[in-house]
């Protein structure tokens, strides 16, 4: 393949890039209202559960409110922040995934390490030394 033919081919490939559609979604009335209604539901249920103590088992209550929070964060990401995989050639999604990985490692690591420090280094009430 000659150099000339290669250059020509490359040029043709880039032509559509100049249109510069960044794939960014700016939302619509419908998407904002959908997000809002879902958020209201996902906020009202946890507050109702905790304020009325509807579920006896505390662990179940905590599991449900944490699950609802996770879902609501995703709802906000999609309907309010308009996250998708195409905006800025997917770099916003890349940055988000990277951040989530760092956040999960830092959060779970901190809680895990500090919990075990607490358990294993609890002062033993040994009175013999105080005599």
């Amino acid at each position, binding site marked *: 393949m000659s*150099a*000339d033919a*290669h*250059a020509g081919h*490359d*040029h043709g490939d*880039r032509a559509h*890039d*100049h249109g*510069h559609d*960044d794939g*960014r979604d*700016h*939302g*619509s*009335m419908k998407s*904002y*209202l959908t*997000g*809002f209604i879902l*958020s*209201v539901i996902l*906020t009202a249920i*946890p*507050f109702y559960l*905790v*304020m009325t103590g509807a579920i006896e088992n*505390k662990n179940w*209550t*905590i599991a449900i*409110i*944490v699950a*609802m*929070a996770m879902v*609501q*964060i995703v709802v*906000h*990401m999609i309907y*309010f*922040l308009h996250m998708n995989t195409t*905006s*800025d050639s997917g*770099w*916003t999604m890349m*940055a*988000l995934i*990277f*951040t989530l990985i*760092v*956040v999960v490692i*830092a*959060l779970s690591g*901190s*809680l895990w390490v*500090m919990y075990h420090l607490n358990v294993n280094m609890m002062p033993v009430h040994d009175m013999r030394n105080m005599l």
Partner: protein
Amino acid sequence: MSASIQTMNGDVPVFYVADEHDHPPGQSTMLGFWLYLMSDCLIFAMLFATFGVLGTSYAAGPGPKDLFDLKLVALNTAMLLFSSITYGFAMLEMMKGKKNTTLLWLAITGLFGFAFLCIELYEFHHMIHEGAGWWRSAFLSSFFTLVGTHGLHVTFGIIWLVVLMVQVAKFGLIEANQRRLMCLSMFWHFLDVVWIGVFTFVYLMGVVR
């Protein structure tokens, strides 16, 4: 692009990208601002981790059940949620190019944000008045740092909002102002996302435990 060799005048090779596409101002602003938000997210993650570790160290002081008024927190959450949807309406009006309704929705958003701040400051004042300030225990130190940092973000968001309203009123919905409004939109919705974490992990789980 691949290192292609384009020939000029038939025989002189040119070793640079001959068809460099232009970079209009602000083309990469949204991605850059998103990266800033992600770094902000890390700050909040650290504060959440701190609260997670210290959140049960009451130092024989008051705990979440004595201090938190969930009705107030529910009201606060509603304020922030309303401000999110009204900011969405402002963005929709901006897309249609309607300056006055954009300003109106922005003003409503600002008022909801301000109401949120007032309720939060009332809560802080109430707690400090009862002697449950940040000096009382590790739980309260981490609580005030986490919730206070979020409140500080909302404060600066409101200042930014007012500045942008003046900008839009003066210069109209020019492209630069649209870009700025989109950045603030991301910032504002991001703060609402952080608040979901705050009311779940700090307030609700604190009261349940």
